[in-house]
């Protein structure tokens, strides 16, 4: 029997955002990454083509994070000792872009400095041709101090700087605007708070094709259902024409999943949890798959095996 396939026609579309500037655009990146542009719910290829596939970022730190899981330390080995070799390893592991998360303290235990942050960013930019996201340590004054210096030192590279939150976004947005970078805007699992922050940032004059939103997701087993539904609602609002939700979404399944005990530790856990490494990779991968289905554009991961599997999931989802 003939079937009239129900196709959604939406008035809105997701904005297209490009990270990283190649030589032609005044930067030094070998490649740029473009995300967004969707005109349908994720992977509804029978309605509209998906113009840009989701991308995978690998999170690295400016110095070896002692509190990361042993599994991650094993996976990256000595590369973790300096950000340049870690960035190279991330590129080799299949990253589309690199997220450099700056630490609160330097190796000497004293607060991180602008000079050290700039040195780390420059080393990473020299080591890889991938676009770069730079995140502050998450303390207002230090974030502003480090990110302003980084933004100026890497002027024109089209970095994405973060994390803008409602309590601290002005300085980061201002320096990103002045130096040709992007920003990531994070709100705590709430459609209206996300939208409000996007409005505040664009009201400062930030061009809307230079904003990424991070809805905060939670990990599998630790609240992913909230993040999942907030992302679906954000995407629906965007397609319905709500301009201030039409930004590509950057999500951090690596950070979320590796906080979970299921990934982080291998001892003193129930036997029914099975093999540690495989469980941890599944935790990160399945968190990512759920976020892909709900509309993620950039997934920030930590384990190289998860990167492989999430790329596989993206390849699969892109099949029409």
């Amino acid at each position, binding site marked *: *029997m*003939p*079937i009239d*396939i*129900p196709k959604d026609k939406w008035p809105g579309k997701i904005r297209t955002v490009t990270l990283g500037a190649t030589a032609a655009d005044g930067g030094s990146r070998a490649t740029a990454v473009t995300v967004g542009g969707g005109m349908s*719910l994720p*992977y*509804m*290829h*029978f309605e509209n083509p998906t113009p840009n596939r989701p991308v995978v970022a690998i999170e690295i730190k400016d110095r070896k994070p002692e509190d990361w899981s042993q599994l991650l330390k094993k996976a990256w080995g000595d590369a973790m000792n300096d950000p340049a070799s870690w960035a190279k390893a991330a590129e080799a592991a299949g990253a589309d872009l690199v997220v450099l998360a700056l630490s609160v303290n330097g190796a000497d235990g004293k607060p991180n400095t602008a000079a050290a942050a700039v040195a780390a960013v420059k080393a990473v930019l020299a080591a890889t041709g991938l676009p770069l996201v730079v995140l502050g340590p998450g303390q207002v004054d230090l974030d502003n101090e480090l990110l302003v210096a980084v933004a100026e030192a890497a002027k024109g590279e089209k970095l994405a700087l973060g994390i803008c939150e409602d309590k601290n976004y002005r300085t980061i947005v201002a320096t990103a605007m002045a130096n040709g970078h992007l920003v990531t805007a994070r709100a705590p699992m709430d459609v209206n708070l996300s939208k409000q922050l996007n409005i505040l940032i664009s009201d400062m004059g930030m061009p809307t094709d230079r904003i990424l939103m991070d809805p905060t997701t*939670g990990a*599998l*087993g*630790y*609240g*992913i*259902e*909230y993040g*999942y*539904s907030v992302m*679906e*609602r954000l995407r*629906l609002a965007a397609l319905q024409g709500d301009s201030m939700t039409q930004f590509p979404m950057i999500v951090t399944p690596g950070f979320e999943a590796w*906080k*979970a*005990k*299921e990934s*982080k*530790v291998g001892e003193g856990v*129930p*036997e*029914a*949890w*099975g*093999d*540690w490494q*495989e*469980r941890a*990779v*599944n*935790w990160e*991968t*399945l968190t990512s*798959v*759920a976020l892909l*289905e*709900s509309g993620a554009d950039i997934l920030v991961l930590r384990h190289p*095996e998860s990167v*492989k*599997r999430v790329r*596989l*999931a993206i*390849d*699969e*989802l*892109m*099949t*029409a």
Partner: protein
Amino acid sequence: MALTGIQIYKLLPQTNCKECSYPTCLAFAMKLAAKQAELSACPYVTEEAKKQLAESSAPPIRLVTLKSAGGEVKAGNETVLFRHEKTFYNKPGLFIKVKASEGAAAIQARVAEIDAFKVGYVGIDLSVDGFAVEADGGDFAAAVKAVRAGTKRPLILVGKDVAVLDAGLAALAGEAPMVHGADASNWEAMTDLAKKHAASLVITGDNLETIADLTEKVKARGLEDIAIDLKAAGMGAHLGLSTQVRRLALKNFRSLGHPLVAFASGSGGRDAVYAAHAIAKYAGFVVLDRFAPELLYPLLVLRQNIYTDPQKPIQVQPGIYEINHPKAESPVLVTTNFSITYFSVANEVEGSGLPAWLLVCDAEGMSVLTAWAAGKFDAERIAKSVKGSDIAGKVAKKRLVLPGHVAVLSGELEAELPDWEIRVGPREAVDLPAFMKQAL
């Protein structure tokens, strides 16, 4: 599709007798449409109207139930495309597939081991829901008997040869198993087979029109319990087809109003990715090729998460929780009974390896800031939780750590609990381990 209020109104007596307790028939019709009233409240409704309303209120996706001595697995009865619109109801059953060619003895041992698998998550014991047995050669009836000897859980029998499947189904008398799968070439024999054994039937295909034709033919032959296995070139194509089926079903296109079955296989993590996709997007039954606890556990958790009712956030029981074997000198950390808040805090403290007492206050299932703003998490309530528990008798050093977000409560709380030292902790759970190491 369910009838609108106006459509229902036309079926009512339109006398405005008020005996249903609503002022007018139209008001009653609107309540019926919103599923906030029962038709039986109207004493004058005609049999014809009852029939029409019953048909229109039949669920758009048929409920299919597999039964055995070990329990039931249900799929269907879903009413929305997105969980935030209402909720998803029937969690997809997770089945593990075994092959007849493995041999009866090996099958029985493996199935018994998988059957015993049990893993705890937020106080719930999770396990696999059933098994699929594939007729890939060898003695199928013996294989089904071996599976039945290893488990009581419901079964799906997979094969193409009707005589072989018949022999397998004969071993499952008195149950409601599922048979996979019928297509255009064998649907008549498969339908008769399923009817004979009180089984539900899976129709397979890669084209919705063909599948819809087949479901109608099978129904005309007298079998209603049908599920659909969509064959697609990849996950994106599968998502497209699954979404189309769900959308059409919710528009009351009855020919596709059946639960979906998905098979997840492949190496290099592919099976995990497929299964997660199927759980998120509309599968009613998920069949895995292999059993591994490190795969089952996250999949079972994902299923719990996706099928949590968004309108009823999971709460944890208020009270004292012991983390890492606390002693008399360990600190007392305060938080709310919103599940995510609780699990974030408990997880961080547990991960830190440091012992602590966690005092979970009844904040009506809200997070710290939300509860504080709503007046459900104030000094009085916290003091009440402390006094209502036996925590004072368990600690020698009376130290209470407040979440940083409610630092403002510390003065009042000192007044409420004069013999306690009130400390202000970090705002976020993630900073608790460092705080506990340095400040406590």
